[in-house]
């Protein structure tokens, strides 16, 4: 798959130094700074035909070898007309865990962003309804972060039991 046209447009829009491109197997990955993410996604959707948002996910690089940044957020995009795939990635560090929401571009981003918020505590500004989705509302930690232990912190045993009368 030839990504040259797409990448050229992205470089035009954001400047050549803001975009770094790497390839692994059949994946092409574009790393952009966090402040340019929305511009990059807009450019890809409106000008390059990436009309399909496959997935949004995040990675906590706390224990990763040679990692400089704490979090990586990943958007997997697809052009349904040509079948071209692209992975857009950005890095975030504490305490500024805010990103613009892609909900305005793809409605499918709604629950994906809620899951990333639920699991990693990364906030998406402009999301219409950013609540926890899988964990209970009263949960305080972000379970997929690497500093959260595999067996939890005893939440399960200490969780208040809701009786039928008070539900």
């Amino acid at each position, binding site marked *: 798959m030839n990504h040259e046209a797409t990448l050229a447009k992205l470089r035009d829009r954001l400047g050549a130094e803001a975009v770094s491109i790497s390839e692994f197997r059949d994946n092409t990955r574009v790393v952009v700074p966090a402040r340019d993410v929305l511009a990059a996604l807009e450019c890809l959707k409106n000008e390059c035909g990436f009309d399909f948002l496959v997935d949004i996910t995040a990675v906590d690089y706390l224990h*990763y070898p040679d990692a400089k940044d704490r979090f990586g957020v990943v958007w997997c995009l697809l052009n349904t007309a040509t079948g071209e795939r692209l992975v857009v990635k950005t890095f975030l560090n504490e305490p500024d865990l805010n990103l613009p929401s892609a909900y305005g571009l793809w409605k499918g981003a709604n629950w994906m962003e809620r899951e990333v918020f639920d699991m990693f505590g990364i906030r998406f500004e402009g999301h219409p309804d950013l609540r926890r989705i899988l964990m209970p509302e009263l949960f305080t930690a972000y379970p997929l972060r690497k500093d959260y232990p595999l067996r939890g912190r005893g939440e399960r045993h200490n969780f208040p039991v809701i009786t039928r009368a008070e539900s």
Partner: protein
Amino acid sequence: MPLELVDVGALPNEEQEYLWTINFGPQHPATHTTLRLLLTLDGEDVIKAVPDIGYLHSGFEKLGEDLTFNQYVTIVDRMNYISPMANEIAWFHVVEKLLGIELTPRCKYLRTIFAELMRLHDHLLNVGTAALDLGAFTAFLYAFYQRELIYDLCEHASGQRFHTSYLRVGGLTYDVDDAWIRQLRSFLDGFMKAHNDVSRLLNRNRIFVERTKGIGVLTKEDAINLSCTGPIARASGVVRDLRKDEPYLAYGELRDAFQVVCAEEGDCYARYLLRMEEMLESLKIIRAALENLPSGPVNVSVEGKEVLPEKNATYRSIEGLIQHFELIMTNRGFKAPVDELYGAIESPNGELGFYLVSDGSDRSYRCRTRPPSFIHFAVFPHLIVGHQLSDVVAILGSLNIIAAELDR
């Protein structure tokens, strides 16, 4: 705990006193598993639906960071437990892509056959239970009898009926034998009759058609914008099937054996018809794969130090034992490249992908699942608005939400 009703759009008018709120689930016969809906009703019309999920969340992705590639297969099995082997195929598709393993031809064909059996498995359940929820009981029984036969095939091949854990990095646990091939052929011969029975019961059944036709219409633009894949997107006219578009396993070689089924209506009836037609295409793929099934080894060569040796070799030869230890011992194992990638297959429910981050060890640093059920359930609030309470089960049934995959 109170849930705010602020999901999709505001309520249409200000006089809300006469609106009812109904709690649907988490334990309800038509949800089939554990999911909950908060419905706002005006009489019988649904004005707003807010899904509340997470009842079955069990931290699969966190477990994936602790288990090796081969061990995690037992967890992957339990995601979409209706078609467990499709998840295994997706998982190992991505792991083998990461490790750069090229499978043997026989393994590719066998995995293709199992992938299509799983598609039959999943579609049969979906068609059967969707009909059951709408009051057609007999079709459900015909569908489930065929599912039993597929369970028998799984049991014969892997020793397990339900959670097979049949695949390994670089191959399969066991090769299949001639008796299994005969069993598969007799299943294929009998399947057409069951398929005919179900179609004849449902396709022109007036109650079924009136309760599904024109219900839950998803337009092509919405299907793309809401990230729908698989049967749901194809029923709305999105011509996209990873088996044709990005061929994996033996689908490239079997390209001419099957066609991509599409519909344009995008309603529940179209989704039902599409699944019925896809089963026929799956049947063609299985037949073609069976005719062309190559001989030879089912696993990649042990020299690559990636595949577990056969049990016989482990117990009876020193080389096998060493190879086994090389992979199993905690300070040994695979040498994976330090990188990350996304890979996906066309599972029965849609695009099932994994985003795998590897730190060079034999377990993933992060394994994100792209679960089709999760993404399709997000579509539900858009589909139900304007329909009636009784249409909730029709739409829910046609989306094929598997809560174990939804929550992981």
